[in-house]
């Protein structure tokens, strides 16, 4: 059981960027009748989302968030020794987007930069990797950039995924400081469920071809997509999540030796409102402690946890706060983090 513990490292500042184009989900009726759309939208609780335009990548959203963070906090760019970029929608298949961002943000060549490709649960992985590296002592400041343009991944003609996803980018500054207590992480994998959420085409198993680009009717409901677009077996994902997520949260709380009352905020991956309400009810959590952005930003994959912190907890993270972060997604891969926040500086969300 991968249970990890770090001390004296934490997030000192955060910023986020979202595309300026707002999609009103009730009006997203190009391919489905309005009453059907309303039924789906009401159930998943995603009323608005942000869509990046054709020229805007995850990296552009992260760049805007990072510029805002560095400027607002007057950070010396020469002190950034590590940059990690989390995304499954990178600029290119190679090189790694993190390296391009190192240059674009004017960070020194002595800065370590690499990408993490993992999906919805990745923010906790990113934190864990950075906290671990920072404990070696050779890194002054680290920048965690987490961006996704999931609007470009899913078919608008597949109702099982057409109304859920949105785009956003987040930047988090991570520093060593004795004021931070212990952070706890549990990171998990189940590759036997690799086919629950997938883009089968365009990799090296099924390289891009005329065949992978063809739109096809894929089920009895008449949903249409190509093999280069993502699909999701929602029922099986849900079944997995309602069992494993409460269990993992309990394990991590036990590992930290605390209870749910000791947590100031539970920040869940914003998958859809149905799943999150169900988990909260099942675990008997106080709804006032569960910030949510699913209604206005939808599911932004790995960005949803940090975006929810920036959007909803901007005025709530003064003094010492303990946050529980929980996320799951493609893989399947799921993670729980219990992390201390001490006077975290959160910038206002910027529009790109």
């Amino acid at each position, binding site marked *: 059981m991968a249970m990890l513990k770090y001390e004296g490292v934490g997030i000192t500042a955060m910023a986020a960027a979202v595309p300026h184009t707002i999609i009103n989900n009730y009006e997203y009726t190009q391919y489905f009748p309005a009453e*059907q759309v309303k039924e789906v939208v009401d159930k998943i609780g995603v009323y608005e989302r942000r869509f990046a335009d054709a020229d805007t990548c995850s990296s552009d959203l992260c760049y805007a968030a990072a510029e805002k963070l560095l400027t607002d906090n007057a950070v010396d760019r020469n002190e950034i020794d590590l940059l990690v970029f989390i995304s499954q929608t990178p600029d290119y298949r190679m090189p790694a987007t993190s390296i391009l961002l190192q240059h674009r943000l004017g960070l020194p060549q002595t800065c370590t930069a690499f990408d993490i490709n993992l999906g919805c649960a990745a923010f906790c992985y990113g934190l864990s990797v950075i906290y671990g590296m920072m404990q070696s002592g050779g890194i002054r400041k680290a920048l965690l950039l987490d961006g996704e343009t999931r609007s470009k991944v899913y078919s608008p003609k597949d109702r099982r995924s057409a109304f859920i996803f949105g785009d956003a980018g987040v930047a988090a500054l991570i520093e060593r400081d004795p004021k931070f207590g212990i952070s706890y992480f549990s990171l998990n994998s189940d590759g036997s469920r690799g086919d629950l959420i997938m883009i089968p085409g365009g990799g090296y198993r099924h390289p891009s071809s005329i065949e992978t680009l063809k739109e096809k009717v894929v089920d009895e409901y008449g949903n249409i997509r190509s093999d280069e677009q993502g699909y999701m077996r*929602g029922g099986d994902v849900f*079944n997995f999540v*309602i069992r494993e997520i409460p269990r993992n949260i309990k394990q991590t709380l036990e590992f930290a030796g605390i209870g749910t009352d000791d947590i100031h905020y539970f920040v869940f991956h914003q998958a859809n409102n149905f799943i999150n309400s169900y988990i909260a009810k099942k675990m008997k959590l106080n709804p006032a402690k569960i910030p949510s952005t699913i209604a206005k930003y939808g599911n932004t994959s790995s960005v949803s946890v940090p975006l929810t912190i920036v959007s909803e907890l901007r005025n709530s993270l003064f003094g010492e706060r303990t946050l529980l972060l929980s996320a799951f997604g493609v893989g399947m891969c799921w993670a729980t983090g219990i992390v201390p926040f001490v006077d975290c500086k959160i910038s206002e969300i910027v529009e790109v």
Partner: protein
Amino acid sequence: MELKEFIEKLAEAIEVEDANILNESTNFRELDEWSSLSVMLLIAFYDEEFGKQIGDADIKKCVTVGDLFNLANK
């Protein structure tokens, strides 16, 4: 759980207003209230009421309310 009680709870779970329209041989996919999202409601229903992990494939095999009842008691 008896069939009658099961039907009442099932109706509530999948948001069918009048449980009396359901019986053992009802084809649940033909209900007006049925949609692709109902599968999620059913999975939550089995988890909550019976502590059972039911997947998409299990539900696909069911045709009638009676089949769903048997799935709960398996």
